[in-house]
C-alpha cells in the first residue's frame, strides 16, 4: 500500500513519518517511531493500555488512525517526565504501589494525568470515573486510587 507523510508534534517535537493510511496511531508511534511505552492490550479500545493524549484529550491510540493525528499534538508516556524528572502522577504510582506488572501502567498514568489536569481536586467518584476506561488486572485499583489522591495532594501543595 502506498504510504503518506504525516506531521505531528510527538512529545513536543515536530515529527514527520511515512504511514500506511490503515496504520493506527499506536503502531505508528510504537513501530515506526520507536516509542514502545504505550501497549496494545486488546486492539479494540477496551483496555486503555494504549492511552495517549491528543490535543489535550485522552484517547485510545489503537482506535485512532495515523492520518487522523496529522497536524496534532500527541503526548505518549515518554513525554511526561520532563528532563528525566517524574511527573507527580508517576512518582505517586511508585510510592503507593500502584505499579505491579506495569503493562497497564503507561495508559493508567496517562489517564490519571489527564484527569488531574482537567480536575485537580477530584472526588473518589471522579477518580473512579476518570480511570474507568483503563483496565488493571493486578492491583484491584486500591493503590491506583491512592496514587491519584496522593498526586492531587502533592500538586495542590506545590
Amino acid at each position: 500500500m502506498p504510504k503518506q507523510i504525516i506531521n505531528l508534534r510527538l512529545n513536543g517535537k515536530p515529527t514527520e513519518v511515512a504511514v500506511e493510511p490503515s496504520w493506527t496511531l499506536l503502531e505508528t508511534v510504537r513501530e515506526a517511531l520507536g516509542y514502545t511505552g504505550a501497549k496494545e492490550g486488546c486492539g479494540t479500545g477496551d483496555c486503555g493500555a494504549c492511552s495517549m493524549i491528543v490535543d489535550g484529550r485522552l484517547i485510545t491510540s489503537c482506535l485512532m488512525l495515523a492520518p487522523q493525528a496529522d497536524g496534532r499534538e500527541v503526548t505518549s508516556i515518554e513525554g511526561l517526565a520532563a528532563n528525566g524528572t517524574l511527573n507527580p502522577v508517576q512518582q505517586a504510582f511508585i510510592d503507593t504501589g500502584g505499579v505491579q506488572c506495569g503493562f497497564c501502567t503507561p495508559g493508567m498514568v496517562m489517564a490519571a494525568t489527564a484527569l488531574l489536569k482537567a480536575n485537580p481536586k477530584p472526588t473518589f467518584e471522579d477518580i473512579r470515573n476518570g480511570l474507568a476506561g483503563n483496565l488493571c488486572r493486578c492491583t484491584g485499583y486500591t493503590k491506583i486510587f491512592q496514587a491519584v489522591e496522593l498526586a492531587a495532594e502533592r500538586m495542590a501543595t506545590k
Partner: protein
Amino acid sequence: MTQTEARPSTERDANGHKYVGKPAARMEGPAKVTGRTIYADDMKLPHMLHAKILGSPYAHARIKSINTQKARLLPGVEAVITAADLPKYKKNPTNRRSIVFPDTEALFAGQPIAAVLASDPHVAEAALALIELDLEALPNVIDPMEAMKDGSPLVHSSLSGIDRSEEQGHVAVDLESGNQEGKASNIASTTPFKRGDVEAGFAEADVIIERSWRSAMVHQSYIEPHSTIADYADGELSVWTSTQAPFYIREELATALDIPESKVRVTATEVGGGFGGKIYLSELMVSLLAMVVRRPVKYIMSRGEDMVAATPAPFAQVDLKTGMKKDGTITAIKSQLVYDSGAYPGASVAAGALLIGGLYRCANLDIVGYEVLTNKASVGALRAPSAHNATYAIECHIDMMAKELGLDPIEVRLKNAVVEGDPLPSGQAYPAIGLAECIRAMSESNLWKGRAASKQHKNRGVGVAVGGWMGGLQPASAIVTMNPDATFNVTVGCADITGVNTTFQSITAEVLNIPREQITVTYGDTKTAPYAGMSAGSKTTYTVGRAVKLAAEDARRQIFEVAATRLEATPDELEIEDEAVRVIGDAEKSIALTRIGRWTTNFGARYPVVVGRGSITATKMAPGFTCQAAEVEVDTDTGEITLLNYAIAQDCGFAINPLSVEGQMQGGVSQGLGIALWEEMQYNSEGQLLNANLLDYRLPTARDLPKIETIIVEVASEEGPFGARIVGEPSIVPGAAAVANAVADAIGVFINEVPITPERVLRALGKIGNGTN
C-alpha cells in the same frame, strides 16, 4: 483504611529489622511509569519475521487437507507452515503444548493449524484468509456434564500418559488422580478422598443442606497477551517469552526437540500479568517456526486469540451435601466436583477436592473430583487453580447451615476452622497456619463492625467467607556477588511476577545491612542464572527468597573472613554497620566495605572474590489462608449488585514488603470479585466462544470496586525467609462465596451460580423465568 506508602528505611523496628517488614517501592517502578520497561512485544531482532496463526473454525474437526498455495503467493509472505512442514519433534497426544499443529484432528475451536510468516504482520494476517482448509466437522461435546455420560462423543480416543508436571508447579499435594484405564471416556482423572462414615455423620446432623453450585469458565485476562520470540542459530535455541516458568520451558523444549538443555536459552521477559496462565503455551510452536525458516520469529497473540486459544480456568459444577449439629459442629461433607478441563487434561481437580474438605475439621468425608474433557480450549492455572469453585460451594453451605441454626457466621467458622496438626482430606497434617487468626482479624474489621449499621438499609447485606491455598514447592538457588564498589548483585532464575525482585533486595539489604539501592537483581535467564522453579504456586518468596537469604549470608561470611584477618578478630565477632565491617561493640576497629570490595577484585588481590551461594530444596508447605467480607446493595428491580465495601484479612507469615503483600491481597480480591459478579466465558452449543474480547468479557473496572480494606495477619511459617509464607494466590479464593453470602444476607436467597449477574438475581427472586436459577 490501610494506606501504605514506600519510604526509605533507616531505623530498626521492634524485631530488630531495618529493611524487611518495611514498605519498599518497586525497584523497577521508574522504568514502568515512564514506559521504558521492555516487554516481549517491544523487542525486535534483526531479520525478524512475524507469525500469524490460523485456528480451527470448528470445535472438533478432521483435517482432510490444507492448501497453502495462494497464501504463499501473496507478496511479502515468507512461509506458510502446516503440520507437514515441521521437523520431527516429540509429541504427547494428551499434552496440548506438545501438539504444535494437530496432524489429523482439531479438538477445539481456535486450535492452531497453520502459520504464516512475513516481515510485515499485516501481510501475514492477510495471507491467513488465503489458506484453503478442507475440514470435516466431527461430533463435539461442549458441556462437561454431558461429556461424562456413556455414549458421549469422545474428545480423545485414548488417555494414556497424561503429563502432570505443570500442575505440580502450582500445588504440592499428592495428585492421587487415576484415569480410568482401559475404558474409553472423557473423564481424564478421578480424585477421591474418604474419611469416616458420611451417612453416620448426616444421621447426627440437625441441619442438612444439599445443593449444586456452578462457577463459570473464566480467563486470566493479563493485560499483556501471550508474547514469544524464538531464534535458532548455530545449534542453539534462544527464546524470549512472557512466562512465569523459564526453566520449565527450557526442559520442555529440550525434551520435545531432543536437544540438550544447555543449548536452549529461555529468557523470561517482563511479564505483563500471568496469574498462572503464562507457564508454557506457544513456545514450542514459535521455536519450530524459527527452526524451519532459520530466522527469528515473533508471535504476539491478539486479544481474541488469547481469549479463544490460551488456557482459561475451568467451569465447575460442585454438588455438595453437608450436615451440622445445633452447636455448630460440622458432621459430614459429601461432594462430587466436576471440572471442565477442555480438550486436554490440566484442571487441578485434586486441589479443589482437597480444599472442599480441608477448611474445617470434619470426621466424615466422601469427596470425589472428576476432570472431564470437552471440545473447548484446555484450561490452565488461574491463581489457586480450582480453589474458588470448591470454596464457593462449601462457604455458602456454612452460611446456609448457620442461618438455619441461628449461629453467627464468624463464630461457626472459628469453631470448625482447621489449625496446626489437623488432617487434610489426604491425611497429611497441617503445619502452622493462620486461618483462625484471619477470621478473628476479620471480625475486627471496619466492614464487619459496621454490619449492624448496614442492615438499617433495605437490600443491603454483609457476607463473609474464608479460603486458602496449599502452595507449591520446588528447589531454588541464588547467587549474591560483591562488586568492587561494595554494591551487590543478586542473580536468580525465576521470573518476577509479583515484585519478588524488590523483596530479594530487601532480604539482601537486611542480611548485609546496606541500603537497598546498593543491590541489583538479575533474573529470569536460564543461561546466566542458577535453577529456580516456576513463579507459580505462590512460592517464589518462600523458596527463592530463602535461597537469596542464604546466599547473602554466605557473602557476609566471606566478607567477615577477609575482614577478620585485618581486624585481628574472629568472623563471628564482626558486624556490618554504616557500610563498614567492624568489631561488635568497637566502632574504632572497622574497615569500609569498599576496601573489601577492592581487596577481593584488584590486580594482585590477596583475597578471593566474594560470591555468596544459596541453594535449597523445599519440602514443607506453608499454606496461606484468608478471610474476606463483602457489603453489597442489591437493586431488586434490575438485579444489579453494587459492591459497597470489601475487606480482606490474610496470613502472609511475615510481610517482607507490606506494599507488595497488600498489592497481592487486593489484586487477588479483584479477580475473585470478577468471578463473583462479572466474568464468564460464554460458549455456544458448537463450542464457539461468544465473548472473545474485553468489552463482552467483563473485567472489574475502577468504577466497580471500592477501596479494599486490607489487613495483614502474620503467623510465621517454619521454613520461609523471616517467617514468610505463600501470599499470591489465597486472595482470589473466597470472593465468590463472600459476595454470594452478602447477597443472601441482602435478599434472603443464596444464588448458586457465579457470576451473579442481574439476570440470575432476578431469576432467584422469581421475577423472571421459572423462579429457579
